[in-house]
């Protein structure tokens, strides 16, 4: 499992492109032997940060350390980290084994040693029989594994992965997730994985850094990120949620007393940064159950439903005219209320959480 020693330290890194600032003083520590994910929407700065770690981008301000040593100014070829590229970037004019040996030969391995090591890594990714092929003769999944093998062969201290699954089709992507996770365990080095796919992040990561607009929004385990999001962005980006604007009356010991615009009042857990005044209430749709009107926490009217196969999304409107989505498991026993029906909503423990902006 992940140790507490730090593999990569990012300290107040700023990256500007002319007038555009891509990273606003980002700090984080990636631990040894950890599957660490940079998660965020397009343009959030996650790829820029990865490229700064790899050395493809110069850092405007701040320091990047590898195992305690400052690598901020080093060119890519002097950094003992390797990258799996989004489009793999396998050298088309070389065979698979030549691709894998490339980094070995450039970093001072002798040819026989390099051949042996390349064979070994290709076995690891189950491509031992494909050594003499050209990348163009391989399938997308095989190319992806060659890219992994090529990056792992020189025994990097940290492996960087730039959306390596995005070029694969959906079925294959799901299978590769588990392989990748197993590979990380096996190699025992830190993987820094960039993705915009929250499901990928949640299933594979030891810890996730959620980024938005060049800033880190939250760092934590998948469970922490999903269940106790720090702010509105994280709650909205990870999973689905209902966000209601509310008045915060008081905050005491992590619990807040709030009132909805319609006047309905109740207490719920609050993120640490929330203070009295305006706030956002996040209610996960799968943690709401239906009951008779008046017997739940909130009353609502059914406005419509969306059929999704495994689930049914029920659109409801609260008395104070706020809209919410309730997720119902689709089973034979599920009773779906008619449009226009009056229902009560029962919030499970931890379903609602008060967030800052």
């Amino acid at each position, binding site marked *: 499992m992940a140790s507490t020693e730090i593999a990569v330290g990012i300290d107040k890194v700023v990256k500007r492109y002319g007038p555009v600032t891509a990273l606003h003083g980002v700090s984080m520590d990636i631990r040894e032997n950890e599957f660490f994910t940079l998660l965020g929407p397009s343009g959030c700065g996650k*790829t820029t940060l990865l490229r700064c770690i790899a050395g493809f981008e110069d850092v405007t301000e701040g320091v990047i350390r590898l195992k305690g040593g400052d690598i901020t100014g080093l060119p890519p070829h002097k950094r003992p980290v390797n990258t799996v590229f989004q489009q793999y970037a396998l050298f088309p004019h070389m065979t698979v084994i030549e691709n894998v040996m490339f980094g070995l030969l450039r970093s001072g391995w002798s040819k026989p040693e390099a051949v042996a090591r390349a064979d070994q890594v290709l076995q690891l990714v189950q491509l031992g029989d494909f050594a003499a092929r050209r990348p163009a003769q391989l399938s997308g999944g095989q190319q992806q594994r060659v890219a992994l093998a090529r990056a792992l062969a020189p025994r990097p201290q940290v492996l960087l992965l730039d959306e390596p699954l995005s070029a694969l089709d959906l079925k294959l992507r799901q299978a590769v997730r588990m392989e990748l996770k197993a590979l990380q365990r096996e190699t025992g080095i830190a993987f820094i994985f960039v993705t915009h796919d929250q499901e990928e992040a949640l299933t594979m990561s030891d810890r996730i850094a959620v980024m938005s607009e060049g800033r880190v929004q939250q760092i934590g385990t998948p469970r922490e990120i999903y269940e106790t999001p720090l702010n509105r962005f994280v709650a909205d980006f990870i999973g689905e949620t209902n966000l209601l604007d509310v008045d915060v009356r008081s905050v005491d010991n992590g619990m807040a007393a709030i009132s909805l615009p319609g006047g309905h009042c109740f207490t719920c857990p609050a993120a640490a940064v929330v203070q009295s005044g305006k706030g956002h209430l996040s209610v996960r749709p799968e943690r709401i159950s239906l009951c008779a009107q008046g017997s739940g926490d909130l009353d609502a009217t059914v406005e419509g439903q969306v059929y999704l196969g495994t689930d049914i999304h029920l659109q409801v409107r609260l008395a104070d005219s706020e809209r919410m989505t309730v997720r119902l498991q689709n089973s034979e026993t599920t009773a779906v209320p008619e449009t226009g029906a009056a229902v009560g909503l029962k919030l499970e423990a931890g379903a609602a959480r008060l967030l800052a902006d």
Partner: protein
Amino acid sequence: MAAGAPMGEGSASNIYRGNSLKLMLPAWAMIGVFLLAPVAMMAIYSFLTKEFRGGVIWQFSTAAYDQFFFNRGLFGDEPPTIEWTYIGIFWRSIWQAGVATIACLLIGFPTAWFIATRDAKTRSVWLFLVTVPYWVNLLIRTVSMKFLIRDTGPLNEFLLWSGTISEPLGLINTNFAVQLGLFYSYLPFMVLPIYAAVERYDFALSEAAADLYAGVWTTLRLVILPEVKPGIVAGCILVFVPSLGAFLAPDLLGGAKTFMIGSLIEEQFKGAAGNWPFGAAASTILLTIVMAVLLVYARNQNRGA
């Protein structure tokens, strides 16, 4: 691309950043020393005094330009009047190049259009057929044309034999022969840029025009021509500019009556005239005209963008 570098700077790579000057230096040096400096030297030469039988004396003089524009009589003591001989040669060159350009356009546009609307496989074969002659030595092509259209050449022989004509056409050594030669020399330069423009043309626009009751020729005039205009303009420049300073076609296909700029200049250096400053002045004037045409073109390009 997800996240990362904003695309503001264009997607230009900077992977070898910091090496720009080192990498550009050979090109700068070669073109700077052996083209830019020579052109400057040529402009200087045009203001020097001529040495008989070639060469110059390093003494400032505007005699070359004076000779070009003014007539001061046989002994140089009459009041100056405009000298039309050389201006006339320039004017004729512009006229000849213009006619050749229009001919190239009239033939080149339908050809480019036809090729660009073939399916991908046959298209590359047609394109190949049109470009092959361009790769053949220009001198050989011009000589071939001369051979073909001579009064005793195969064309006239054939027409006489078949009874179509009773006397040779007398094509050689005419303005028409020069125009034909220029047309023949630079036609591919017209076809290729128009082809590229037509290939980018979105045929949904033609469908929209047809849907809105435009016939084929109306569509051509109102929709297609404005869309492919950049290609047409580029093609015209690529034909007009080299035609203007052409030497081989007027020299081999035209006679003394069809003298063009290229021959005028050549004569000052290689021929009997041997007046270097005058040749340099004529070259400088030609270069000025060409640069003006290119500048107007570049300005319009920028405005369009």
